[in-house]
């Protein structure tokens, strides 16, 4: 591990070690660029991960105080847990399911494809699929995505068999075990999936790609990485020229340090990233950093989600094997005859008994609830994930009075569904239920959205500086040496699980940062 001096102002500082930050740090280090990687959470490992839902939740999750508002049900059921994301080295790549899908061409052009939709702040991305294709290819290779690069698909588990049986009967044509960043064969020094069924709890096999045991050790091996775990960033600082020049953070003992920087890249996930920019307000940047557009924190997206679990008359034991074991992609098209714009994916999902109790129908009690829980081992399940409409009023803002342990305002997460989101969810619930009824289920349960796992769009990319926070490279419009390096960049949400795109954007951004550094323009 390199040791980079706090006063060394030649380094790039990356904030957050997940899909965006962890990948970016490695890519920079591979190019010979000295990189400080600040991670708020602590270091875990495949050895310390636990096959226990609540214990792993406590070990990996971001549980710092947050507040919620808006009409989403999460605000009522989990008022201080708007998002189910991680605070640990590797970020939410420790917890993610592994689904690795490319955004479709038309989804990059959401405004052009869907047209103006009332109440939605749709825009076209300043990049298209062709810009990202070479980077998608690199990401798929890096991550070992099944059904790419000659890597076979994973074998389907019982939960997949239930989905497949119904999908086939309904006439869906695209149902398979997915494009997963989970090794179906040993690859790049990591073993293959042993079907543990605890993908969300940190993969103890290391078969699922996570920056924790891929990008970060690779970066370390270059001698260019200084990883600091337990470093909670409090504020970005800037010089008289307006350029960012340092990062103030607190270590695990609460001691504060200022790390000087040549370039700063923020990848704290779509809640912490805008929070940090807003908490970095100064006399020069009175509304927060990189916020001349007023768009920092706005257009928070979380994907249209929901789940369908269905009870069969025999055991399915959906928990055996990969958590996200298969997909139906037929509904991911844009087809307004269904009554909404954009599309959604249907992906198997299983929860263990403890989390099923927590999420099946939060707040419910009595015989109707327990009758469903009694069917637990007979259940199959799927998650529905689709494009939600960006709305300016869905936003991350700073809480007026609540402060964290360091005196910094906590984030409030405001979210309300757009009518398009509601129409899509209704369609998805219906189709998901139909899949299982076609497979012979006796009853299907509609399960409301969990706390957000896909947090997107709060520092969106835009062609024009007035419309968004960063340009097509993730470089902020206002401050040349400040970059957004996570899902906050997403102009719109698209239907696909976002990690592959976040990784691809990070690889591409590293190329651009290296180029600009060589040119001495940053």
């Amino acid at each position, binding site marked *: 591990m390199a040791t980079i001096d706090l006063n060394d102002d030649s380094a790039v500082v990356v904030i957050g070690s997940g899909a965006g930050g962890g990948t970016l740090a490695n890519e920079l280090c591979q190019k010979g660029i000295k990189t400080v990687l600040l991670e708020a959470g602590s270091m875990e490992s495949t050895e310390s991960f636990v096959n226990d839902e609540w214990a792993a939740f406590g070990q990996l999750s971001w549980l710092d105080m947050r507040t919620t508002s808006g009409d989403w049900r999460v605000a009522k059921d989990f008022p201080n847990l708007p998002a189910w994301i991680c605070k640990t080295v590797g970020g939410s790549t420790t917890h993610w399911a592994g689904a690795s899908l490319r955004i479709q061409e038309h989804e990059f052009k959401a405004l052009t494809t869907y047209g103006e939709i009332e109440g939605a702040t749709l825009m076209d991305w300043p990049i298209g699929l062709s810009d990202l294709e070479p980077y998608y290819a690199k990401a798929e290779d890096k991550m070992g995505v099944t059904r790419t690069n000659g890597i076979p698909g994973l074998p389907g588990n019982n939960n997949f068999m239930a989905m497949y049986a119904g999908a086939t009967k309904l006439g869906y044509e695209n149902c398979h075990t997915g494009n997963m960043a989970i090794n179906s064969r040993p690859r790049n020094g990591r073993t293959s999936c042993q079907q543990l069924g605890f993908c969300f709890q940190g993969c103890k096999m290391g078969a699922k790609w996570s920056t924790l045991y891929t990008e970060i050790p690779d970066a370390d091996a270059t001698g260019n990485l200084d990883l600091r775990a337990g470093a909670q960033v409090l504020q970005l600082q800037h010089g008289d020229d307006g350029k960012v020049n340092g990062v103030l953070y607190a270590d695990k003992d609460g001691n504060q340090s200022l790390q000087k920087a040549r370039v700063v890249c923020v990848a704290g996930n779509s809640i912490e990233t805008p929070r940090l920019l807003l908490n970095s307000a100064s006399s020069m940047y009175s509304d927060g950093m990189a916020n001349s557009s007023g768009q920092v924190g706005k257009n928070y997206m979380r994907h249209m989600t929901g789940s369908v679990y269905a009870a069969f008359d025999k055991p399915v034991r959906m928990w*055996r094997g990969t958590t996200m074991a298969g997909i139906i992609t037929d509904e991911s098209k844009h087809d307004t005859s269904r009554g909404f714009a954009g599309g959604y994916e249907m992906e198997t999902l299983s929860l263990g008994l403890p989390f099923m109790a927590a999420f099946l129908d939060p707040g419910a009690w009595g015989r109707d609830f327990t009758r469903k829980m009694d069917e637990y081992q007979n259940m199959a399940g799927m998650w529905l994930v689709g494009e939600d409409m960006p709305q300016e009023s869905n936003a991350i803002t700073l809480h007026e009075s609540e402060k964290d342990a360091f005196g910094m305002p906590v984030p409030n997460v405001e979210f309300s569904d757009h009518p398009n989101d509601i129409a899509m969810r209704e369609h998805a619930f219906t189709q998901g239920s139909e899949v299982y009824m076609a497979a012979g289920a006796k009853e299907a349960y509609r399960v409301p959205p969990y706390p957000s796992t896909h947090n997107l769009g709060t520092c969106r990319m835009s062609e024009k500086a007035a419309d968004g926070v960063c340009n097509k490279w993730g470089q902020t419009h206002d401050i040349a040496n400040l970059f957004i390096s996570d899902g906050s960049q997403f102009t719109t949400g698209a239907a696909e699980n976002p990690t592959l795109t976040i990784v691809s954007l990070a690889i591409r951004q590293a190329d651009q940062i290296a180029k600009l550094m060589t040119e001495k323009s940053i």
Partner: protein
Amino acid sequence: MQQTVVFSRRKFLKTGTGVLVGSLAFSLGSVSTPAVGDTWKLSLESLDSDTGKALLKVARHIFPHDTLDDAVYALVVKDLDGAAADAAVAGMLSDGVAQLNDDAGGNWLEASDEDQLKLLTARADGPMFGKVKGTAVVSLYNNEMAWEHFGYEGASFDKGGYINRGFQDLEWLPQPSESASPPKA
């Protein structure tokens, strides 16, 4: 008030006959509730045994699984007892039970199950109900006795995962095509 908590989840795992073994009891006031085929004891540190017994029944009404042993519901009471180390929580819980007793005109536990539920439902907006529900939704389902009951198998890493232990053993649904679900390596 210090009592030894005689408690180990592993001790209560069923032996294959569906009978719970071990001992778990309310030792304060030496209350023991007869479980299926056995007795058990739970030592309480902060709550008195009458409150503990009532809370166990409250948890049963909130999440009724008729064939789930009282020993599992006792784990909810154990966690409530832990929370009751905070005197404010202890007071809130015992006040909630006292309220139910008042509503029942004496002892809520002596009312019929139907009347108990009716009286409890009328207090469903109260803090005691919310505390028991919020605790039970975790405690009741996050233990190996419950996993055994519901058929959930828990941790798999130590057993080599499910790759050779039935992750694709459904015989009552058609086999997916090899292109949809390739064979395992």
